[in-house]
């Protein structure tokens, strides 16, 4: 889907930055997020970084004509640097950083075993097929040893990528979310009621 096919044409949550919808602390937090360089990484190695970027591009493919793509991989690297987990993990799952490092290594190994090539070098369809088999837990590489494969895919890989993406204003624009709202909230609550500071949906 090209960005030009947007459901909410012209909507930009950032346009509300200087309105009563945004308080100072929200401005600060979102500005920090927007300032993150897409190539910034201090946790992942170069090899991991290449695999990770390729994985993110398949889990949440972004339109090529997008002006401000979500820097998913950089957000994940930041999460790893801060070691920001969920506050729990299942008994058979390694801690956050270890899970990601081992997971990425295993994805890479799986790609080489199946296709004799690096994951990032595969065609999109091959990458998708490989990710689907990981989701089903159908893997062959020895590197998966000690990782609960399907659970890793769902609770770690998918979960962290999706958390990063939908925490970004670009994603909020895409889905017509009102975005930050404090001190001003909303007034019109019923069916088909829209406050003037909410997104207008393009009707077919």
């Amino acid at each position, binding site marked *: 889907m090209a960005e030009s096919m947007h459901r909410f044409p012209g909507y930009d949550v950032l346009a509300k930055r200087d309105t009563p919808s945004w308080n100072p602390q929200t401005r600060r937090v979102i500005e920090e997020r927007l300032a993150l360089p897409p190539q910034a990484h201090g946790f992942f190695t170069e090899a991991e970084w290449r695999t990770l970027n390729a994985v993110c591009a398949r889990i949440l493919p972004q339109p090529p004509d997008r002006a401000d793509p979500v820097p998913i991989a950089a957000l994940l690297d930041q999460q790893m640097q801060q070691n920001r987990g969920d506050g729990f993990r299942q008994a058979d799952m390694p801690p956050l950083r270890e899970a990601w490092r081992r997971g990425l290594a295993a994805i890479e190994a799986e790609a080489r075993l199946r296709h004799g090539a690096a994951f990032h070098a595969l065609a999109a369809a091959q990458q998708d097929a490989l990710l689907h088999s990981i989701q089903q837990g159908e893997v062959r590489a020895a590197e998966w040893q000690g990782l609960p494969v399907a659970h890793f895919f769902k609770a770690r890989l998918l979960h962290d990528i*999706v958390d990063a993406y939908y925490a970004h204003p670009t994603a909020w624009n895409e889905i017509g979310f009102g975005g930050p709202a404090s001190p001003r909230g909303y007034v019109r609550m019923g069916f088909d009621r829209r406050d003037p500071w909410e997104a207008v949906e393009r009707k077919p």
Partner: protein
Amino acid sequence: MSASDNHSGASPGGPDRPAGEDPLVTPRARQGRAPDVFRPGAWLPMREYPEDEPVDFAIIGTGAGGSTLACRLAEHGFGVVALEAGPFWRPLEDFASDELEQSKLYWLDERITDGEDPIEMGRNNSGRSVGGSMVHFAMVSLRFRPEWFSARSSLGYGVDWPIPWQEMWRYYAEVEEALKIAGPVRYPWGPPRGRYPYRAHEVNAAGLVLARGCEALGIPWAPVPLATVSAPRGQSPPCVYRGFCIIGCSTNAKQSPLVTWIPRAIRAGAEIRDLAMAGRVELGPRGRVSGVHYHREGRWRFQRARNVVVAGYAVETPRLLLNSACPAFPDGLANRSGLVGKNLMVHSGHGVFGRVEEEVRWYKGPPSLALTEHWNYTDTGKDFDGGYVPMSQGPLPVEWANVLTARGIWGEDLRQRMTDYIHGAGAKIVGEVMPQERNRVTLDAEQDRFGLPVARVTFSYCDNDRRLIRHALRFQRQLLEGAGVTGLFDVEDTAHLMGTCRMGTDPVRSVTDADGRCWDIPNLWVCDGSLFPTSGAVNPSLTIQALACRAADRIRTLARRGEL
């Protein structure tokens, strides 16, 4: 950073303020003052108690149970020190409208989960701050059905509570008044009750979908009684329907303990110590506890106390008691019954979602504004024990995306479906879960940053739980079909934590008596969700606060009789 930004939240997501100002690093409540949550940069004078003289009550945890008890005990004239592992937030300055940033409200230290149905912790159920989990709760404030207090003798399942419902009813009214609960004039279920202190909130479109479904089925629905004010109250402005409630209310409309019980407690002479992590309760001479070892400002300290109350919620409370094992209590403090940590309960939170033609924009307003307690008060047509209550939903984007990925959806498909966000509608239950001893909190070999063994949380549904869930999913499908929702799909979830230090009338079958007083140690108390013998099928915080109000009154009575 501009001057006005100086007090904004410490961000786990970026460059922070100097360490001296970061509320996650440096305590705020000290040197005789605590943050005044209603005025930026302002302080309330706070009494301080010395560590080496026994304070009447040292309370561990300042959530629904701990803060309420701290307030009421202080108002009854007792000396109170409340230790809280989390920070003391100033919502007006610290709370951003952002899901990622606000993860700072959760208990994010590791816990290990297992069992057949491992539960999600962290943002799903555990807070860590002054005010506890209610700082990011959804404000739903419901009373138990009266018969649930005698579940075994009246309804034939679970166990009886040691407190008659009429007594709980009085304390419910006290809490509803203290939080100015906004609810309907006439609530459709249960015995007659006084009207709610504040008028009900307007029901948003997401709630109206549920209402439409109930009307199609010919069963009653109601606006949800909520702990956020529908008109100004003191320094709290009315709710502005910004919809970020479960990541913290930045306007102080929400009547969480942080803006209700805590300021009251401080005014009544309680001391709150933030960033104070209790690690062990010390058993002293004569079979009584003597105080609490806790970590604050870089070192371990000891607060002496005549009484210790554990109020860390259903995982941290048993963890602390188990971590406090000593020669007299090798299996954990106050654990002669062997029940500390056992009978952990959650609520099943299974739901059904879909799409409606109208724009719903369910991010507006508190997440749950309409419900039906039909299956809590109807006993026929059920193939299970217990009850459940479907409620309307309003997930924020990250939360909603996680609902879709849990179904295995990703890629272009996920992005496409997410663009339907403003047409989403659905319902989720708070469903009763049976107490089972195999569901429990134990200690894991792994240690946290304080060197304390972390909790291992084991959970599996029983057959009755599964039958209830099946019934609830079927019913919610009917409800939503009747409301014109299409493309329905089921989701699995849990909410809330209860049990693990159940109260009762028999020292062999419970950990504490009806007052939360441990059978094994007369000056050790529990006051939080871990006391619940059964889970009921409504959100627990109103009941936890009612128990705390009752415990405070009972403690005053016992003290007057010389029975403390």
